[in-house]
């Protein structure tokens, strides 16, 4: 059975390798793949999966790459694959080519393959999965689904995984459906027993129980953000389907159905799938104007379509929460690839002098935290708040801290005058800055029979919300909005600064999904004697710590996942930094950034600057 074409000394590694599953989209492989990753996690080993998929529903190739790291690294590793589970004939050649020398190829050898289809510098392990399942099952659908589980059993045996952990996961997954649990466990053991009987431990990549997972949870960012919206008290969601954000709105639907039903079965929420992104942001603005917490979830093309409305919300000062799960461009715009490409289009969205508040989570935990926080900030600042996810965080399961909630926490509804306030004679002017922080009081429609009503419109108004095209009124309002934006910088989550162990004049700025790659790169760079102070941006407008950090360094690398260095531009523009001081490190091929890339870019830059010292470049 075993088809080894050449005796190759395979890689020997424990808890440190990359497994890639090459599948056919729609073949039911997704749940078996997730089961594999979760089984590794249950052994206390950090496993970080990534879905690599085309914009397609059925038939085209998809991959599921899992990095297994006993050191807890979660970034995409980059480089080749250590173990390829090649289940898709269509991508066979490409998949075999991507294996590192000394790596392993696991495949279904039911049908013999021509020797030319293999490589001589890898270890090939064939298991007759199709034959086994065809013999054991008659129903074609069962054959397909159980083939994935038999394969998982075989792999589990080859990698020394904990069978009991997998069985436990299966019984949790199909809880209450004993027949299904037993059938899956049976299929799992079919794979295990076959390997035990027929192979002599050909794969030297091993898993070994470890303790790097702790109490962390395994969740994707879109789902966590949707929970954040539930805990943030959102009652109105208006959305238009767009990859990679759709699962965020769908998560909200799911959690609302579970946790937001009143005792009479009626819904404490309203979700509308709008006709387009213009309508979805319009509904959000209408609902928030009327005192409900409302949000939409979208991606770059949606942000483009919402521009006019976003500007209106900025000038009319209406709260709105926009989750932007970033991809790359418009139309067929790499919708299933990751990028950080909407930084500028969100920070400066719309016409007129506008500046917006951005929250930038690094992982699902912060997607939840910032998701909930965004509704408080929207109400407090009476302005649109953008929560900037990307596909890498949004659509991949990731280990993160468990989600927590303080039950004594109250929603901050901001400055809202009630009927009692108005009745007591408090002066109400919709755009009157009584507190000096640029934030004015509002009333909800229908509050009081004779006081507090006002007309909402764009910029033609005075501080009492009366129609005005007077230059002085316009200018006063614009300056107050500037002041409000300045207030916002004290309310967004501050940047997190992590000083290097050794003194250094070099710094690095990063944000969002770049975190795990940066953390790993930092260790590698420190080993090479390159020390960096790190600052992770979590919000815009920038707090005072951001300018101070840049000020304290001779050169600061700004690491991001777009072509133009959008965050760098924002820093230069907002903080009036000398551009030569901010070195651009950009990764933008649609795959997640890796530690290897960062290390190489930074060391190349430093080596290059040995010829022309940095100090000169950056002075």
């Amino acid at each position, binding site marked *: 059975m075993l088809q080894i074409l050449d005796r190759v000394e395979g890689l020997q590694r424990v808890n440190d390798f990359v497994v890639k599953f090459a599948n056919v989209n729609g073949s039911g492989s997704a749940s078996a793949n997730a089961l594999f990753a979760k089984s590794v996690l249950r052994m206390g080993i950090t496993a970080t999966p990534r879905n690599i998929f085309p914009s397609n529903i059925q038939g085209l190739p998809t991959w599921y790459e899992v990095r297994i790291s006993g050191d807890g690294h979660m970034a995409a590793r980059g480089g080749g694959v250590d173990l390829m589970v090649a289940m898709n004939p269509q991508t066979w050649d490409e998949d075999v080519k991507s294996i590192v020398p000394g790596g392993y190829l696991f495949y279904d050898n039911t049908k013999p393959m021509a020797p030319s289809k293999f490589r001589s510098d890898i270890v090939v392990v064939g298991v007759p999965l199709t034959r086994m399942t065809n013999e054991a099952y008659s129903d074609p659908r069962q054959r397909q689904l159980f083939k994935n589980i038999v394969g998982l059993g075989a792999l589990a045996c080859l990698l020394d995984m904990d069978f009991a952990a997998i069985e436990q996961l299966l019984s949790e997954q199909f809880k209450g459906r004993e027949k299904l649990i037993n059938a899956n466990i049976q299929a799992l053991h079919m794979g295990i027993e076959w390997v035990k009987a027929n192979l002599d431990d050909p794969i030297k990549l091993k898993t070994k129980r470890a303790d790097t997972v702790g109490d962390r*949870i*395994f969740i994707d960012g879109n789902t966590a953000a949707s929970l954040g919206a539930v805990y943030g008290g959102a009652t109105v969601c208006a959305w238009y389907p767009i990859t990679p954000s759709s699962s965020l709105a769908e998560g909200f639907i799911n959690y609302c159905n579970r946790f937001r039903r009143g005792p009479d079965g009626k819904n*404490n929420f309203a979700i509308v799938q709008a006709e387009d992104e213009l309508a979805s942001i*319009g509904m959000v*603005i209408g*609902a928030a*104007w009327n005192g409900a917490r409302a949000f939409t979830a979208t991606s770059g093309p949606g942000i483009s379509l919402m521009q006019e409305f976003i500007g209106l919300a900025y000038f009319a000062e209406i709260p709105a929460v926009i989750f932007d799960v970033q991809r790359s461009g418009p139309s067929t715009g790499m919708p299933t690839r990751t990028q950080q490409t909407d930084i500028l289009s969100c920070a400066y969205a719309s016409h007129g002098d506008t500046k917006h508040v951005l929250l930038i989570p690094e992982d699902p935990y912060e997607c939840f935290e910032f998701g909930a926080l965004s509704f408080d900030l929207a109400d407090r600042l009476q302005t649109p708040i953008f929560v900037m996810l990307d596909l890498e965080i949004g659509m991949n399961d990731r280990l993160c801290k468990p989600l927590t*909630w303080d039950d004594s926490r109250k929603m901050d509804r901001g400055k809202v005058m009630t009927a009692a306030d108005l009745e007591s004679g408090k002066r109400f002017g919709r755009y009157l800055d009584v507190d000096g922080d640029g934030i004015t009081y509002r009333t909800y*429609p229908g509050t009081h029979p004779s006081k507090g009503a006002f007309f909402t419109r764009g910029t033609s108004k005075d501080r009492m919300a009366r129609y005005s095209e007077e230059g002085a009124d316009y200018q006063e309002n614009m300056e107050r909005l500037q002041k409000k934006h300045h207030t916002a910088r004290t309310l967004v989550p501050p940047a997190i600064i992590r000083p290097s162990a050794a003194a250094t004049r070099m710094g690095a700025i990063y944000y969002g999904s770049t975190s795990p790659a940066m953390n790993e790169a930092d260790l590698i760079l420190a080993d090479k004697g390159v020390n960096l102070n790190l600052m992770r941006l979590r919000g815009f407008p920038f707090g005072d710590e951001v300018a101070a950090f840049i000020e304290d360094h001779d050169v600061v690398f700004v690491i991001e996942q777009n072509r133009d260095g959008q965050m760098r531009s924002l820093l230069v523009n907002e903080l009036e930094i000398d551009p030569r001081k901010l070195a651009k490190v950009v990764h933008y091929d649609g795959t997640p950034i890796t530690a290897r890339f960062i290390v190489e870019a930074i060391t190349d830059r430093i080596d290059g600057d040995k010829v022309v010292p940095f100090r000169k470049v950056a002075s």
Partner: protein
Amino acid sequence: MTFIPKPKLHHPELQKNALGYTRRDYEGPVSTLCAGCGHDSISAAIVRACFELDVQPHRIAKLSGIGCSSKTPTYFLGASHGFNSVHGRMPSVLTGANLANRDLVYLGVSGDGDSASIGIGQFAHAMRRGINMTYIVENNGVYGLTKGQFSATSDKGAKSKRGVINSDDPIDLASMALQLGATYVARSFSGDKSQLVPLIMGALRHGGAAFIDCISPCVAFNNHEGSTKSFDYVREHNEAVNRMDVIMGREEITVDYDPGTVELVTQHDGSILKLRKLHTDYDVHDRVAALTYLQERSAEGEIVTGLLYVDPEPKDLHGHLRTVDTPLNELDESALIPGQSVLERLNAALR
């Protein structure tokens, strides 16, 4: 343009409605539209309708898009919150507002450019969702604020003030509203207050998507010879299928009529629409026949007005979404936030 408040001096003997409000309480600042503009007549009709219906002015939310028509909400219901949104997007803002608080009365005011051109998508989807609202299009067939370009409701062959003949077919918003599921559809004429006021009253008391296409001549750019939206043209070609009165539930109904010529339609909230039929074979409950009738009469060059269709037991978006009776904007932490115990359960399932 500036803000001109109306003097607060009231005639001591102004008539009061059941809530003690006078008509003045439903007015707004002085209109800045052109003298004689049909839109001002519609504003006056809205004021009259709200007064007659005994609505508390502050319990109405008025929303509009952009254009001459969309400016009008500033000039009526000064005690109500208003929202001048962006061009063609009033329906989505109104939809969101309605979702946030189901207890207010929603009045959307738009124009033919705002609803039939840039906003036709949002117009259509608001109708098919069944938002509980009164949606009035002040239809003059031109873009007034930008000085007289044709709009999408301009009739084919109509002549602009500059002498250009329109070659595009017109969009009939009333037919679209019918086709898309609006549950109260009417057409009227700003020059016919006795027809318009009751139609607005009936719409405000309707529990679903109510649409009124109100022909409203533009005195500056579309009131000339050769226009099909001028005062003279509309008067000559107006073909009303019925005349309507709205009778509130509390009033005693005393009608003397010939059988077959008057129909009483009781809406869900108890208001009664008393329809005096001018075309005895016209059935206001037959959506399909109404569409056919509109097309037939339009082909003859007639402008059909009156209550075209009504479903007295409409469903609205809140009904479809099964939202709670309490307005969503009043729900607090106890109703909205599942708390730490739920998170712990979720965390446990994610390990």
